[in-house]
């Protein structure tokens, strides 16, 4: 066996565990979901005992289901609000600030990184104590100090609240990726721009942003796709309520599959969500030329 062939086999062997895990826990379930979505599989009743092939019926039902469209709209607003705007803007701001010499820099770094280390459901319960319970909620007590009427935040501003919580959780990821992007820009390029007479605002818009654009788009791809899949802390906070106001596509899939026990229909929604995620990924990679 030649050296190249031996190396090639060694590489395949190294990749094998990852491929097996991916197949067992991602590819096979995805294929099985496609199969389930074409049946009336359920967790209770006659369909649970004897599921039938129903063709595209679940998909036809889905496109006529206002709750499905609502979950798509909620997911869209959640992704735009938390990942594309909140996490990105604050992450970029933090990345730029924390690259400068700053007092208490390690403290600020820790404050930004810690939310990412908290488990999703723990974060959910933590924020329940912050937001739920009307005038007993921590946030209500804080704003009462400034003379603002206490309210039940998760009832009054449910979508805004989960956007804020997800922004809080995700700034670190944005900051780390964007810091890497900023580090790749030579310090001398900024100095050359200063010598050329660029103001700090012009340096940001005409040098920094164009140069880290590939990193920004990569971040957008990663954060969009991962935010579409968020489930745990939102479910812990609101269960998708009130009245579907925070029912993300992931929660809708769960509710249809394990609360309404309609596995077939839930799978159809999951397949559509997967197709959306793939389409977004393809748009980023092909149209916006993101280097992954």
């Amino acid at each position, binding site marked *: 066996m030649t050296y190249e062939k031996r190396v090639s086999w060694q590489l395949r062997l190294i990749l094998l565990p990852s491929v097996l895990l991916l197949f067992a826990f991602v590819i096979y379930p995805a294929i099985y979901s496609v199969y389930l979505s074409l049946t009336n599989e359920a967790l209770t009743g006659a369909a649970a005992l004897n599921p039938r092939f129903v063709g595209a019926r679940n998909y036809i039902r889905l496109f006529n289901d206002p709750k499905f469209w609502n979950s798509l709209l909620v997911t869209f607003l959640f992704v735009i609000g938390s990942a594309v705007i909140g996490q990105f803007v604050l992450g970029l701001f933090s990345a730029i600030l924390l690259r400068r010499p700053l007092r208490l820099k390690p403290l600020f770094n820790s404050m930004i990184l810690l939310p990412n280390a908290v488990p999703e459901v723990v974060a959910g319960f933590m924020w329940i104590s912050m937001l739920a319970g009307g005038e007993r909620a921590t946030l209500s007590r804080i704003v009462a100090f400034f003379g603002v009427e206490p309210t039940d935040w998760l009832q009054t501003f449910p979508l805004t609240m989960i956007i804020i919580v997800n922004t809080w959780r995700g700034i670190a990821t944005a900051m780390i990726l964007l810091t890497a992007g900023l580090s790749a820009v*030579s310090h001398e*390029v900024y100095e*050359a721009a200063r*010598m*050329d*007479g*660029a103001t700090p605002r*012009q340096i940001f818009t005409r*040098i920094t942003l164009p*140069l880290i654009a590939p990193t920004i788009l990569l971040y957008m791809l990663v954060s969009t796709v991962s935010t579409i899949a968020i489930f745990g802390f939102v479910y812990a906070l609101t269960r998708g309520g009130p009245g579907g106001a925070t029912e993300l596509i992931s929660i809708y899939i769960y509710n249809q599959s394990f609360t309404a026990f309609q596995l077939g229909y839930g799978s159809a929604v999951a397949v559509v969500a997967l197709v959306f995620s793939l389409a977004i990924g393809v748009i980023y990679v092909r149209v916006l030329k993101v280097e992954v």
Partner: protein
Amino acid sequence: MAVIELRNVRKFYGSLEVIKGVDLRVEDGEFAVFVGPSGCGKSTLLRMIAGLEGIDSGEFLLDGKRMNEIAPDKRGIAMVFQSYALYPHMSVAENIGFSLDLKKVPKPEIRRQVEAVAEILQLTEYLDRRPAALSGGQRQRVAIGRAIIKKPAVILFDEPLSNLDAALRVQMRAELQRLHRDIGATAVYVTHDQVEAMTMADRIVVLNGGKVAQEASPITLYHKPDNTFVATFIGSPRMNLIPVQLSRPGNGLVRLTSQAGWSIDLPEPSPALPAGPARLGIRPEHLKLAEGSDRDFEAEIAVVERLGVETYLTVGSLSDPFMARVEGDVAIRPGDRVGFAVDRRACHLFGADGVSAHRA
């Protein structure tokens, strides 16, 4: 008109003083080169002139006007960076014209000026390319174009040739000199390469440990170094510094006796040195092969480096060697004992403190 004056300029990083009171004057249109080993403060001093580093004490005057508090782009100074620092997302034309674009100069006027600069720098056919699609030499020219389009009174160069290969460096050296003659701006050029310094400078400023060790024309520095640092920094191969004992035999001359036992007599130095330890400075080319009564000493050859046009002979033990540079290809082999004559007119004498006391 652009006369640069530095008056007792100092720079601290925390408690560490990196520029220790530099006084300097660069005349209008002069090509001054800051040279020195890594960490001597030459780039810091250049960046202080550019305005990219603050001046902690002392004054920087440009044509008599204090510049300490003036922003970099308001000083009338342009800079060419070591890494070129081109904007990678802009074309060559956009790179060169960026400063004019920031000043809101009309687009057709920018184009006209960019094309004129590109013509001078032979960049016309590359104007629409991105920097990544250019060679090192072309990138360097773009960086120079970006500097000269501002019509600066002063151009600063921070080791601009250090990323180029040897052949291109020689070519760019000549181009930079031609460009300097054409545009007539005062130039300050930083390098650690003494060949660049010697070939390009009207005046060399040798820096060591944040201070000016000596400033003079290249040839003056070569022939009349003020101290052992300059003596060994300028010239390649470096000047030999041979420890000697100085005594006065009473013939009006001073006698220098080496540790190997040979001695030579030189005229009394000025200022006079006390009897005792001193150092004799001899450039390798001033040690001649000699036989019989012409020779001053004989020594064993440790290493022979034959370059064809000349031969470098490393003389004495490898732990404490000195070098001779003889013309042509000589048939000497390591281990041979060879006689040398010292060219007394080219000898330098340094006191125990390293300060020059006698100049040939």
